[in-house]
């Protein structure tokens, strides 16, 4: 029996689609269009004098060494965060998948960090690594390591990468664990009978079967590193020292909110939008080919 429902005419289906379309329009398309429009203008903060400048804002942004620096920082930052978060989560998930005592508690604890807001997470890391009030920061200095992320750009980058990755590990962990549990035991047993050792079983059987999950997480993690790490950077380093931890999204905020340079900020956000769309498209085009569903 065919239970498919058909609607006659076009009005009713359009009506059902309307709420979703309205939400998309109001909360996504409209602001994005506004950003695109703003990116073509030079305007004072209060919007009293407006000058249409075409693509001048874009030309200025791309020629700005500070923006290029931020782009380079973002490349380092996003790839490190995604790699670190994925690798650690996969390792932990594989461990949690084994039959160990208290696996439930272990799993629950691992999920907790995801519930911590980015700014709070950053403050927790601050309390650990601040050179003069942080527990670990002080210990490092006492041990003779010159730890001062407020003046050492590499240390600052390391800190924001680790703090951001830490936030994302739990999310990845859940997906990896679910992925691992859906791998049929028979496949692994067959490999074991064929004489494959655990490490080989992991790389030749488990990892390929996990690839849909890994691919999905890679996309999600990169988007996370591009957009959602603002809170961590804002609370820990404010883009400093110098401009060592200023990423593209942080620069959009600083130029728009602190500096009230709306044209440049809008142009940067449009570039960022295009960049992430392109990155995701590339991933689907090239990386997905290697994924086995």
């Amino acid at each position: 029996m065919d239970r498919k429902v058909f609607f006659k005419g076009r009005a009713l289906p359009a009506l059902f689609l309307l709420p979703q379309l309205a939400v998309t329009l109001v909360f996504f398309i409209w602001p994005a269009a506004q950003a695109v429009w703003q990116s073509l203008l030079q305007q004072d903060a209060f919007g009293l004098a407006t000058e249409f400048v075409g693509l001048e804002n874009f030309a200025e942004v791309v020629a700005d060494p500070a923006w290029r620096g931020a782009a380079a920082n973002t490349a380092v930052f996003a790839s490190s965060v995604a790699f670190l978060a994925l690798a650690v989560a996969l390792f932990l998930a594989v461990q949690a998948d084994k039959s160990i005592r208290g696996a439930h508690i272990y799993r629950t604890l691992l999920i907790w960090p995801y519930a911590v807001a980015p700014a709070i997470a950053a403050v927790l890391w601050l309390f650990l690594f601040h050179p003069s009030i942080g527990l670990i920061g002080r210990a490092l200095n006492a041990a003779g390591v010159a730890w001062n992320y407020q003046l050492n750009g590499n240390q600052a980058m390391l800190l924001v990468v680790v703090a951001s990755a830490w936030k994302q590990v739990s999310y990845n962990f859940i997906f990896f664990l679910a992925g691992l549990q859906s791998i049929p035991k028979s496949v692994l047993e067959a490999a074991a009978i064929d004489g494959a050792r655990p490490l080989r079983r992991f790389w030749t059987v488990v990892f390929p079967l996990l690839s849909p999950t890994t691919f999905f997480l890679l996309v999600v993690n990169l988007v996370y590193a591009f957009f959602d790490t603002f809170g961590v950077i804002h609370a820990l380093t404010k883009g400093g020292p110098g401009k060592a931890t200023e990423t593209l999204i942080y620069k959009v905020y600083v130029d728009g909110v602190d500096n009230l340079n709306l044209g440049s900020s809008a142009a940067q956000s449009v570039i960022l939008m295009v960049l992430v769309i392109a990155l995701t498209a590339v991933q689907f085009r090239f990386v997905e080919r290697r994924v086995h569903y």
Partner: protein
Amino acid sequence: MLRRHLAAAAVAVLALAGLGRPALAQPAPVEIQFWHGLPQPLGGLLEKIVADFNASQPKYRVVPTFRGTYPETMVGAVAAFRSSTAPHIVQMYEVGTGTMLAAGRAIRPVHELLSGTGVTIDFNDYLPPVRGYYQAADGRQMSMPFNSSTAVMFYNKDLFQRAGLDPNTPPKTWQEVEAAARKLKEAGISCPMTTSWPAWIQVEQTLAMHNQPLATQANGFRGLNAEMRLAGPLMVRHMQNLVEWQRQGLFRYGGRDAAADGLFPSGECAMAFASSGLRARIIREGRFQWGTAMLPYYGDVAGAPRNSIIGGASFWVMNKGPNAGATGGRSAEEWRGVAEFFRYIASPEVDAKWHQDTGYVPVRRASYEVARRAGYYQQNAGADVAIEQLLRGGAATDNSRGIRLGGYVEIRTIIQEEMEKAFQAQQSAQQAMEAANTRANVVLRNFERQNARAAQ
């Protein structure tokens, strides 16, 4: 939150009691929207003043709203103005002054508000660096000064004693500071000195106190075409000293803005250059004897030292929106209410109490007198250092009046970024100040272009 409710309830009760007749018989009070950027506990104290004003008269009701940090409050006010829902009054930090002034139709200058409503406030009684910061070049008052601070030096008397220094004679000049820092270091103190607000204190204050320009056109007071003067001999010399002292372990860079504030109350640093407002925290957290002194200066520079400049915020009166016309989109009664509120907060008693409760400086000489007569400075030694420093040298000069540069928030960040690169030894002090100068000029030119027409 609870406190706010209590305050509102208290206002309601007082208002009812004060009227002496049923509230229903009264016309509803005129509402004045007031956005501020002070977090607790300061925000609560500010809202208490507002509640007292509301209770003092039945005609106007000022509604205070906390809108986040100063930059967030500013962005909120900008967005509200663009959609014609601007508040009547918005609190804006001092570095936003240039941006607000260039906003032309967005704001109603205080002198205009007062002449339009017939309310008078004696601005001549205000401390020169306070009123000057918020005046046009010709002396007309543009915004209403309120919470103002300046930078001072705090020093740890216990650590001074341990290093064999006299705890009752703090160093006055940078040469003496350096000598004291060496002794402190020899005595095994890991952080002889640090600074909060590196751009405000080590650059802006240093230049003002030595009567040297931060920018041309009287630090921007005379026009949008000002150019930065960050790489002059004094500034380069001072930056070289700081970098050298940092290398030798005499000075510790503690981060941007207020990030280094904690290093002094914790007892870690022996000398700290910080906002006079840090006083309250030191009282609360410091477990040692400490003193307050004026900021150091270079004794061999002619004309130094003179007054320091202020920080803090002032109140701006805003028109409702871009298309509000000559009335600003408000009724005469609303303007009158804003002016009455300003007259209330300008009263020496209110100002003196605010000063004593919060650690901000009194903005009027009369309030300073009120606090002195109440014996406040006898009980709180050093609380008057900031005020004396602001009054030093008489009327403020073009270089010590304050800063009137557009996009100055960004410029402060630029200065701090370049300083950080110098402290990391990525560039010399000279290069740092030159790079900051170049980058800051780009900001000024962009601002000039965006605002040249808006200001007309």
